[in-house]
């Protein structure tokens, strides 16, 4: 899948300004773009790579539970209790019926013009497109040569 659902066309956006902001972001240096720096990050500390690796599940807890990183492990285990709770949150039971009631009664139709729709390039489509382009280019070349003669 290749896009972010064109947030400026109303399909995904809730204010229609998303794409304009992203364009201006793309003009900025990559580092700023990927990690916007806010005033609240001024006091940010640097975590040891081993702690990140443990939090990513790449290394076992025992590896980081000693030395300077032991305190970090304790901190994240504490935070993870709350993170685990959030992981178990469920949608309120009434919401499903509420959404179904709010859906239009009409059958979904194609609304977005074809040139603004999401498209997926899979290997078959890529090969078919490549072959078609070669055939068209060959035909055009042959036609030009024929006319030139």
């Amino acid at each position, binding site marked *: 899948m290749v896009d972010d659902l064109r947030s400026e066309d109303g399909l995904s956006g*809730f*204010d229609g300004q998303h794409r304009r902001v992203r364009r201006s972001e793309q003009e900025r240096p990559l580092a700023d773009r990927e*990690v916007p720096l806010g005033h609240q990050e001024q006091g940010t500390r640097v975590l040891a790579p081993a702690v990140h690796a443990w*939090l990513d599940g790449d290394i076992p807890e025992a590896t980081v539970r000693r030395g300077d990183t032991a305190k970090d492990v304790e901190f994240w285990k504490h935070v993870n209790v709350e993170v685990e709770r959030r992981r178990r949150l469920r*949608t309120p039971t009434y919401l499903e019926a509420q959404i179904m009631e709010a859906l239009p009664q009409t059958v979904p139709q194609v609304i*977005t013009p074809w040139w603004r729709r999401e498209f997926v390039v899979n290997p078959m489509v890529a090969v078919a497109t490549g072959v078609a382009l070669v055939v068209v280019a060959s035909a055009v070349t042959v036609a030009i040569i024929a006319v030139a003669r």
Partner: protein
Amino acid sequence: MVDQENTDQLIIQRVLTGNRDAFKVLITRYSDPLYRHALCMTGSPDVAEDILQLSFIKAYQHLAEVRGRFDAWVFRIVANGCKDWLKNIRRSHLSYDEDDQPSSYATPEEELDRTELRSDLDRALSTLPASLREAFVMKHVEGRSYEEMADLLGTTVGALKMRVHRAREALQALLEEKYS
């Protein structure tokens, strides 16, 4: 996953041929992770419900245009909805109550401690830029792999790792004095 993708496509075909009720299967299948994402991004159950409802309505209206995985497509609608909401709303304090969530803590003191951590984490998350908050929520709350996140957000694994790392470091700086 492939089976689920196939059944999603079958359900979409049924909806497109006039079986509106079939859409309920897709809502049931995907609403929980989408709700968690919206709730953790916005910090408000009411807003999360609104975003989820609007997103599923948009998904229904544009269902004929789905190409590829429905779950990834609808996730991006919700994620963009959250980011748009965050851009429009600047709130200094975010918190939510969950009266419908049964308490599982042993003692009132433990319950109090957890409630405090909950609101402190909400406050800390609300100070992060949307891109860092999104990366942290997807990695830690939703338990997604970096590859899956990259696929959904259309960015690179390296960029997402950096966002998650920065988010962790910012959160720890904000919370560690109290919770270390």
